[in-house]
């Protein structure tokens, strides 16, 4: 019998894919060396990395001085080897950079404030956290009370009062940016709604406020709040200078926030308003349930941009004599005990690292949130 058909009885083992369609080499070829320009750029980038990374590593880690008691002890002739960054300057001043002049015995109160804030932020920002509504109540009602009482003190609870001129460093940066962010967003939303309102006086007031504030630099607002504002008040009646700055910063950024939110409101098609009205929703329900959720989603990048700007602009309060994080670092540089060559490098590298971590964190969170909320266009 002639065998007319051949049938394989076992399945052949799977062959590796040709190296041209997968694998490291292909990825490298397609992404790094796909054309002459690309190859040149890749080589240049590699060279740039090679030229900087080892030197930086050497300077920041290997040669760094980690413990010293004065600036002199960080100098090469006293260490006996080439020296890099004097991290000892940062570690020895860490308490001052974080708490300012807050009395050391009361530092735990500042820690409590930081912890309470971290809890609130995680609760609100982590989408899967339970009891969201309780979280909102906590962050906007309970946390401010905890923060205020623990930081300023209360004789009733046996906490020594600490005047705000002792607050400083990272504490002040966090207080100002938290207050600014928490107040400016809701006020900004109200101002944006007010500016698009059909009621002439509300609209006029909103427009005047927004345009006036946007027309002056933050430094002017701070200077007004801290130096000029007391002129209008009767003698002996002086609101706390930190409070004046807090209000100034919050109102300033509320105007910017209002414009960001207005951008979102304008992007919502008219049909959405009409549909909401057709359903019989009132103004506030229409805004809260239909318009704002869509509008705010659109402007997340702008809002976070404002937050990041606000966080960095807190450094400007130094000009009215409030010692924020950066100012405490700069002031410590003038200390003759620590004054030595190369000290500013350590100080400013540390400052930029801290600011970078916070701003980059905010930026990444907003990108992640955008992707998560991008339901409308996902099909």
């Amino acid at each position, binding site marked *: 019998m002639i065998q007319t058909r051949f049938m394989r009885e076992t399945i052949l083992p799977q062959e590796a894919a040709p190296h041209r369609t997968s694998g490291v080499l292909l990825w490298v070829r397609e992404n790094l060396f796909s054309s002459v320009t690309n190859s040149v750029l890749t080589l240049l980038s590699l060279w740039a990395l090679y030229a900087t990374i080892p030197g930086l590593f050497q300077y920041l880690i290997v040669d760094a001085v980690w413990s010293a008691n004065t600036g002199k002890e960080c100098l090469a002739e006293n260490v006996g080897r080439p020296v890099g960054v004097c991290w000892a300057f940062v570690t020895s001043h860490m308490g*001052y950079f974080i708490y300012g002049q807050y009395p050391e015995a009361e530092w735990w109160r500042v820690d409590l404030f930081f912890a309470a804030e971290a809890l609130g932020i995680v609760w609100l920002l982590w989408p899967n956290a339970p009891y969201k509504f309780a979280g909102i109540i906590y962050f906007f009602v309970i946390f401010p009370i905890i923060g205020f009482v623990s930081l300023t003190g209360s004789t009733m609870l046996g906490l020594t009062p600490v005047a705000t001129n002792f607050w*400083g460093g990272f504490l002040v940066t966090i207080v100002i940016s938290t207050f600014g962010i928490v107040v400016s967003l809701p006020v900004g939303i109200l101002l944006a709604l007010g500016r698009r309102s059909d*009621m002439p006086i509300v609209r006029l007031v909103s427009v*005047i406020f927004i345009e006036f504030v946007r027309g002056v630099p933050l430094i002017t607002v701070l200077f007004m709040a*801290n130096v000029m504002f007391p002129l209008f008040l009767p003698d*002996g009646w002086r609101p706390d200078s930190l409070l004046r700055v807090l209000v100034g910063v919050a109102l300033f950024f509320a105007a910017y926030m209002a414009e960001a939110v207005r951008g979102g409101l304008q992007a919502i098609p008219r049909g959405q*308003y009409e549909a909401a009205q057709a359903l019989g929703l009132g103004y506030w329900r229409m805004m809260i349930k239909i318009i704002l959720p869509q509008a705010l989603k659109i402007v997340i990048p702008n809002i976070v941009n404002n937050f990041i700007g606000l966080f960095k602009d807190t450094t400007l309060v130094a000009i*009215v004599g409030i010692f924020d994080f950066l100012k405490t670092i700069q002031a410590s540089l003038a200390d003759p005990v620590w*004054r030595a060559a190369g000290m500013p490098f350590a100080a400013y590298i540390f400052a930029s690292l801290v600011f970078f971590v916070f701003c980059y964190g905010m930026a990444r969170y907003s990108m992640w949130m955008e992707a998560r909320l991008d339901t409308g266009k996902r099909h």
Partner: protein
Amino acid sequence: MVIAAMLRKHSADVYVLPNSAEVGSNWRMGMKKLILAAVISAASFGIATAASAGTLDNVKQKGQVVCGANPGTAGFGVPDQQGNWTGLDVEYCRAIAAAVFNDPTKAKFVPLSSKDRFTALASGEVDVLIRNSTWTMSRETTLGIIWAGINYYDGQGFIVNNKLGVKSAKELNGATICVQQGTTTELNVADYFRANKMEYKVVTFGTSEEALKAYDSGRCDSYTTDRSGLAADRLSMTKPDDHTILPEIISKEPLGPVVRQGDDQWLNLVKWVHNALLISEELGVTKANVDEMMKSENPEIKRLLGVEGKFGESLGLSNAWVVQIVKALGNYGEVFDRNVGPSSPLKLVRGSNALWNQGGLQYAPPIR
């Protein structure tokens, strides 16, 4: 109520869609001008009233002296590692607190930049400004402020590298000088070299840090600023010991506490706190021996320490006011030594700041 009524309109059944019509821009401009005018007139009114109140009564009522302070100047006002303010100017503020409250910690420091320091004083934001402020005629005649004394005689000097072998500023002919742009420092150099008929080349920089760095890297033969600043700047050189501050002083920079005009009681108090520090040094009253000195037979010491006479009361203080100051901080010599003198990293010599009977300029009128 009006706002509530306006908001209520939104609950009506008909909605007008948001329109983008905004208020006319002309109207807006007019409004801005109006507000500005109101702000300016209110501000000038405020300055007139703030100065007339009794500062000492205010201070006693507040329970603390509010001092305009340095935002970080080595030796004069700078936070130490723990964040406590230290420095010559800072201790002057503590001395006032000690005189008024018998407690040097009842001083609040408001760090001020050089731009807003006089405004802050005039507006009453601070009670006294002790912040490296140079006493000049125009400041005193136009800003409504008055100096209560000179707690540090400063002046512009030069720093040179030892390699140069220059021992006096007179030998700087043909030198290249690093200097901060647009400061009186730059003008003083020009005056000095012209007056001494010397040639020089100036290299200017936007900030003092840049100028200093350029000098340190060998770009210039000399760097110039106030001598108290030079002492601090020398510490930040790559090799501090290679540099010498030349003995010549080419400008007068008298630094001292400043108060508002129109409150002579407060002016007297600040002035006499300064004088008391000087007299204590002159009479040998120190932090350590002040209790023993109370028993001294010397009539001058008796008057100083309030054993005899009612000099403190005439200032609105207790008669033991000097005892309170010296117990807390010591005399002028001790304060100087600790903050800018030999016991500090700055190691400045007394020079013009020595007492008058030791060849310096510090001279206090007698208490009698």
